[in-house]
Structure formats: structure tokens, C-alpha cells
């Protein structure tokens, strides 16, 4: 599991910088595609056509938005706390960007192949919380503060079920390293954890229901952690103007925007790595497998889950705060703990 860029350039500072920049180069076009997808898929799901007048069938719409956001006036309210107000979008973006350090793109390329990849992703998620609180408080706006409060309550609540899912996978895989988790699932499609993992025999069928429940639990809690609908009460425009980014305009708002889309990719990639075999081909090791195909499968599968998030956004209404807490603490957490226990027990007797 050597790093491709280190092999290519050698282990020096240039290679390190290149590795740092690759995720950024990935995020920017990805964000454009995701924004276009959000607009277009949302429109199609409502029998509309979406943006049509910018480029061919509106494909340049996100570019126009970036050009516009660059020109927008950058307002800092007079009574806002200026240092924190200006720092917050960067902290939020760092949180999203840092997670890319351990996300594998293929068998050969992973920016940093540390052995604690899952734990790291889980830990840097907390940066977003700090950034959101910082922005919400520094805006000196009651809606911002309310949105920040809601966001923190929500993210911290839903980190617990997500953590239980991570623990279950770590228990069965015996590692926190993403590449090893993916390697465990390589081979034919039924080696993926959602289909019971690599172990053979009848016990595999005992695993499947628990993994499916864990998969759904993580899908739901990942939506909550990225503040996506139906868990977008931190920025619920019908109640609190725009939540924690009410006072942000121009490029600072674009940073929040980009962090949200980067986070969408991160959680989708985590779903793919934990349950759907990461960069491994669904046709086994013989067909359409290899480092380049690995990038294709990894990004393709992750994009499918980005699509699922968009799909859910245009399907479901927003939850109320108490319903959100009910779902998090009374449904997802007990279910995930029960599944963790069951999987640990099954793994022990296996």
C-alpha cells in the first residue's frame, strides 16, 4: 500500500504538497458538479427542467454562480466579532478538507495511509462544530446563534450512532485502517460488509440483517452530520432565517457552501468504504479492477450516495427539533448499540 505520488516523485516536500493539493483539485470540480446535480435533479424530481439558460441546458450554472459570488460585496456586520467572524468559514472548510487526508481514492492513492483512518475522520468532524459555533456566535445575530446551537446539538447527538457504526465495522474488520477494511471486502460482491462480510458459511446470513440496519443508521446519521435535509434545522429558512450563515455573504458564504458539499462527499465515501467495498470492483478481482478502475469505482459509488442525499433532500420534509432528538437518541442509538452487541457476539463465536 505504497503511496503512488511518493513512489513517483520521491519522499520529499514537493510530493507532500502535491498530495495536499490533489484533494483540493478534486473538491472544486466536484462541488461544481454537485451543485449542478442538486439544481438539476431537484428540478427534475419536481417535473421542472432546472437551469436552462446558462450554457448548454444550463450546465454552466455553477460556474456563473462562482463568478457571481466572487463579485459579491463581503459584508461584515458592524457589531459582529470580526476576527472570529472571518475565521469561522475557514475552520468549517478545514474540517471538511482534513477528512480528505485519509480518504482512499484507489488501491495506490491515499493521501495519508494512517492506521487510524476511521478514527481520524470521526475526530476532524468536530472541527465543523467549532466553526459553526464560531460563525453563529460571532455574527451577533439571534438567528445565527440559534442555528449554531441547533447544529451543535444535532451533530453531537448523531455522532454517537455514527461512532457505534464505526465501532461495529472496526470490531469485525479488526482494524481502523481504511485500506485494510477495503482489502477485507475485496473479491466478489458478496464480500462487501453490507452482504455479510468476507466470512463464509451459514453464519454470514446471521450477519446480514445487522449490517443492513447499521448501513441505514449510518446513512441517516451522516445526513444529520452534514446538516442536509431532512435534518437541516440548523439552517431552516422557514424558522431561523438561514441559520448559522445568515450574516455571511460573498466568498465567505461560498466557503460554507463548499464545506457542505465536501462533507457530503466525505460521508458518502465513508459509507462506501464501510459497507460497499470502497474501490474494489463489484465483479471481483478479475474484471474491471486495478488502480485506475479503483478511482472509478470509489468515486462512482460515492457519487451515487451523493445522489441519494440529493434525492432524499427533495423527497422529505424537515424534521422538528424534538423529532430529531427522538430519532437520534431513542431510535438510532439503541439500534446501533444492539447491532454492535450482536455483531461482536457473532464475531466472537465465529
Amino acid at each position, binding site marked *: 500500500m505504497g503511496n503512488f505520488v511518493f513512489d513517483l516523485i520521491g519522499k520529499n516536500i514537493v510530493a507532500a504538497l502535491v498530495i495536499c493539493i490533489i484533494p483540493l483539485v478534486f473538491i472544486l470540480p466536484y462541488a461544481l458538479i454537485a451543485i449542478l446535480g442538486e439544481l438539476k435533479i431537484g428540478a427534475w424530481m419536481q417535473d421542472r427542467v432546472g437551469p436552462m439558460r446558462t450554457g448548454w441546458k444550463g450546465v454552466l450554472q455553477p460556474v456563473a454562480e462562482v463568478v457571481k459570488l466572487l463579485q459579491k460585496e463581503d459584508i461584515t456586520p458592524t457589531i459582529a466579532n470580526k476576527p472570529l467572524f472571518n475565521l469561522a468559514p475557514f475552520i468549517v472548510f478545514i474540517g471538511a478538507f482534513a477528512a480528505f487526508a485519509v480518504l482512499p481514492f484507489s488501491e495506490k492513492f491515499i493521501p495519508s495511509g494512517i492506521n487510524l483512518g476511521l478514527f481520524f475522520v470521526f475526530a476532524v468532524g468536530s472541527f465543523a462544530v*467549532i466553526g459553526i459555533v464560531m460563525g453563529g456566535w460571532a455574527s451577533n445575530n439571534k438567528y445565527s446563534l440559534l442555528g449554531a446551537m441547533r447544529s451543535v446539538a444535532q451533530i453531537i447527538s448523531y455522532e454517537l450512532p455514527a461512532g457505534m457504526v464505526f465501532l461495529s465495522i472496526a470490531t469485525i474488520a479488526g482494524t481502523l485502517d481504511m485500506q485494510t477494511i477495503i482489502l477485507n471486502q475485496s473479491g466478489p460482491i458478496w464480500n462487501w460488509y453490507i452482504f455479510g462480510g468476507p466470512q463464509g458459511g451459514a453464519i454470514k446470513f446471521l450477519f446480514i440483517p445487522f449490517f443492513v440496519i447499521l448501513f441505514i443508521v449510518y446513512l441517516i446519521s451522516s445526513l444529520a452530520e452534514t446538516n442536509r435535509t431532512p435534518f437541516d434545522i440548523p439552517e431552516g429558512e422557514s424558522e431561523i432565517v438561514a441559520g448559522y450563515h445568515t450574516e455571511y455573504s460573498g466568498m465567505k458564504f461560498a466557503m460554507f457552501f463548499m464545506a457542505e458539499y465536501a462533507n457530503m462527499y466525505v460521508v458518502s465515501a465513508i459509507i462506501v468504504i464501510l459497507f460497499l467495498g470502497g474501490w474494489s470492483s463489484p465483479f471481483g478481482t478479475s474484471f474491471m479492477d486495478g488502480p485506475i478502475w479503483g478511482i472509478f469505482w470509489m468515486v462512482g459509488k460515492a457519487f451515487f450516495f451523493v445522489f441519494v442525499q440529493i434525492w432524499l433532500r427533495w423527497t422529505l420534509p424537515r424534521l422538528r427539533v424534538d423529532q430529531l432528538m427522538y430519532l437520534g437518541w431513542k431510535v438510532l442509538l439503541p439500534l446501533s448499540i444492539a447491532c454492535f452487541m450482536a455483531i461482536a457476539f457473532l464475531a466472537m463465536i465465529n
Partner: protein
Amino acid sequence: MLEALFYIFAAMIIGSAAVTAFTKNILYAAFALLFTFFGVAAIYVLLSADFLAISQIMIYIGGILVLIIFGVMLTTNVSIVDIKEGFTGKTSFIIAGIFSAITCIFFIYLAFKMPFINHAPKDVKLPNDSTIKPLGKLLMTNYLLAFEVASVVLLIAIIGAAMIARRHDD
């Protein structure tokens, strides 16, 4: 390259810790702590203690710092809190001065007496592999009692918090 990184992070820790100590705005102090914790985590990484570093980020930044900020923010009038309130005057300066002087002398004494390693020993190899496996084994065998006691302390804290937050009907 690693040394340069070390000095950058050390400067970051000291600078943000100074902000935490000297700022008058209590929220600046809380947010400066973010950088202190982050710098400490980075230093852990440089020392090849990756598990400790990520635990530092998760527990201190994700947990404790959020808690502190939450507490500070929910307190009214955070930005105009007068930190000097209460026990002021010359006596407090004198007491604080004595204590600081004692601590300072103690640390200087330590600095001269401690057998610091100025160079990396030849035979010690920094682990390339993760520290997570030996850590888990040690926690489950040699240090099980300490581990369990720590969890009991946390349990007591949770029960106490629940007791305080309980609605008093009487």
C-alpha cells in the same frame, strides 16, 4: 522539515495559550484553546503517537471545547464579563505573585535537574506501525484498574449532571 514543523506548532501552542491566558474576552480564550489543542495534537503526531493525537482532537476539541464554548455562550453577557470581579486589590496580587514565583523556581529547578535527551538515541526506533494494538493490550491487561476507575469517575460525573439538571418538583 520535521523540526521546522515542530517549531511552527510549538509557536502556535505558546501563542494561542498566551491568548487564552491574557485575553479579556472569555470567548476568545475559548476559541484560542482550539489552536492550543490542535497544536498539541500535531506535536503528538510528530512524536509518532497517532492514536493519542486523534484522541486529543476528538476528546478535547470535539468534546470538551464544544462543552466549554456552549457553556460560555449560554451564559448571558459573555463578552462584557469583568474577569477581575471579586477578590481584587493588593493582597491578591501578592498571593498570586508568591505562587507564581514558587512555580517558576520549581520549573527552572526541574529544567536543570531533568536528564533530557538532547539527541535521539541510536537504538530506539520510532514505531512505523500504529500504536493502537499495544495500547489496547495494555489498557486491557496491565492498566485495567486505572481504566475502570476512570470510567467510574465519568459515570459519577454523568449521574451528578443528571441530578443537577433534574427538574425539582417540590
